[in-house]
């Protein structure tokens, strides 16, 4: 047996082991979602002092931990990025706007806690009677910040109570979850002057936070408003579909905690993965196709008003 053969055999062995773990993961996902959401809530309500000021979850990575993680990034053994093509689905019809995804993401990825920086968010669209255009709001609307939380926790306010808004009847309200589209032709990667942000072979667009200079050209170039500047790190910030989790066979944090199955994640190279099935069985759309970015987040049930 040649060295190459041994290598191939080893990879095959590793793959089957991971597939097995993946299956286990799928089974545990439903239970995990509930437990995850529950624990997130419990901890967020803990009320401990947070480095960013105000009340916040105690287990969000602090600066020292982040520095350590950057210095000694976890090694991911047995992961071959040529053998995956990750994709994301959003079933907008199922979203109830609970914002557990936003909270989970902020905790998982140490995103700045305020309402002006987020890796994922949910938009609420409302048609008033007789209008062809919607009213839209999201977590950056001060009314959607839970009072007393110093802009660290969010909940859609009840402004469309009783189907009325400023004396007009509300015809329809729906939620749309947004996150980085990990585009096939990402404009952020195109404009990055240093190459600190790049397209991984398995799909996600990643940022090397040790190399990013913080010029924010990528923030300008993203048509979807998915990027922001992390002031603490001085570098660009965006969703990477929890790359540290998916490369270990886990689901992104937002998918894990979503109680309704709005967020669907999986491998396009696996025809039986949830996302492959989602794309196959539904009429899906992408956001702003005219931009030519070829997004990898596929939406079901979005309206013409969704930008």
């Amino acid at each position, binding site marked *: 047996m040649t060295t190459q053969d041994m290598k191939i055999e080893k990879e095959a062995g590793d793959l089957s082991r991971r597939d097995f773990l993946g299956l286990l993961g799928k089974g545990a996902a439903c239970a995990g979602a509930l437990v995850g959401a529950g624990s997130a809530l419990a901890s967020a309500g803990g009320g401990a002092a947070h*480095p*960013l*000021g*105000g009340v916040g979850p105690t287990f969000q990575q602090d600066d020292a931990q982040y520095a350590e993680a950057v210095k000694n990034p976890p090694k991911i053994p047995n992961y071959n990025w040529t053998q995956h093509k990750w994709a994301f689905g959003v079933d907008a019809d199922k979203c109830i706007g609970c914002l557990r995804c936003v909270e989970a993401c902020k905790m998982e990825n140490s995103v*700045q806690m*305020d*309402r*002006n*920086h*987020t890796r994922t*968010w949910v*938009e609420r669209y409302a048609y008033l009677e007789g209008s062809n255009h919607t*009213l*839209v*709001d*999201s*977590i*950056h609307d001060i009314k959607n910040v839970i009072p007393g939380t110093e802009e660290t926790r969010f909940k859609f306010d009840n402004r469309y109570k009783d189907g009325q808004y400023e004396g007009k009847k509300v015809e329809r309200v729906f939620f749309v979850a*947004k996150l980085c589209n990990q585009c096939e032709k990402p*404009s952020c*990667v*195109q*404009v*990055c*002057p*240093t*190459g*600190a942000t790049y397209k991984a072979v398995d799909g996600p667009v990643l940022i090397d936070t040790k*190399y*990013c*200079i*913080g*010029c*924010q*050209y990528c*923030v*300008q*170039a*993203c*048509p*979807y*408003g*998915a*990027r*922001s*500047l*992390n*002031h*603490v*790190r*001085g*570098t*660009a910030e965006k969703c990477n579909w929890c790359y540290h989790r998916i490369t270990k066979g886990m689901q992104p944090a937002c998918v894990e905690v979503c109680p309704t199955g709005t967020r669907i994640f999986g491998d396009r190279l696996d025809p039986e993965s949830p996302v492959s099935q989602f794309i196959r069985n539904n009429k899906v759309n992408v956001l702003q196709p005219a*931009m*030519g970015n070829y997004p990898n987040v596929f939406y079901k049930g979005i309206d013409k008003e969704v*930008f």
Partner: protein
Amino acid sequence: MEKDVFYHVAPFTGFTFPNETEVPWSELIVIYPYITGLVAGAFVISSLHHVFGMERFAPISRFALLTSLCFMFFAPTPLLFHLGQPVRALNAVITPHWTSAMAAFGYVAGFYVCLLLLEVWFSFRADIVKMSQTRTGIMQKVYKVMTLGSDDVSPSALHADHTIARRLAMIGIPGACGLHGYVGFLFGSLKTREWWSSDLMPIIFLLSAIGSGVGLLIVLYVITSWWRKKPTNGGVMEGLLYVLWSGVVIVMVIEALEMVQMIYKAREGVEGVFALIQGPIQIPMVLQWGGSLLALVITSVMMLAGTRGKKLVFWLFTSGLLMMIGVLAMRWNVVIGGQELSKTMRGLMTFHPEVYGRESLVTVATLFTAPFVTLYLAQKLLPTVWEEEPIEPEERVFDIHKAI
């Protein structure tokens, strides 16, 4: 730190993306294209004499060149202050990512600084050699070093200087246009923002740069003449009047064309553009168009009436200043205005600049004062910049002992 988090957060109306409410490019990015524009404009004036041999501009051509160099030194500084990780700034030069419009900036700026330094050196070499022989004390050593060991002032050597300086200027013209057209391309090539995404953007930036550069030279020439208690040269003032008039006319026509195109095409989001003009950038819009229009009217009247003498000096100075203000307002409208209109086209933000801090008006004021201070020191070092003056070695010496 908590304040830092909410540093540039702008209040918004309508619907914007949450991340957009923090305006990424602040007033520092307004001043950056403004300074590079002044560089390009001043350089063009100096080239009118050096390359095209327009003798009218001879008295200020070397001053224009020096102005260009002094401003170019500070062109990249606003960017450094703006970066989240300024220490890593050179990453873009060491490992440029060539698909990025921004990757070439270090090279373009570096090339241009070198070119300007070389041209200044060749233009002033004979004077430097002379001063290294006439000065005493520490300044003699300084000038000695500045000659770089080349103290040949024979007619053939001077001829070579002149030829090389002219060739450098010839490279410099496309260089200056490229430098500033490139800045326009940085904005115009972004498809995400309706307000920026225009094919005319590089041309608008370039032409307004020349306009503002001429304005700066007029202002500086009048002030320095007053400072030196010397009359302004009538020929120079007339020449500057013609250039400024042409500049204003072309800039206004192109900018108007761009606006008309945007409105006539009326793509999705044109209502947002209207709201932007009537809302957050209303005052700078009035300054931009009002300044340009006033400059156009004043210069046109002077052209028609053939104004000369003190009246010309006063009104040309006013027009130059108006042009500078108008172009500065235009930079604000482009850079800040573009970000105040949401990518969703359905919301507006209102940017309020910080007064103190790293990215603040104080920083902008400091960075914009620095080139003037540098220019003051540079003309002390190279007093022959005013060609019409005979050298008076003992009077104009920049002597460290005297300074103390």
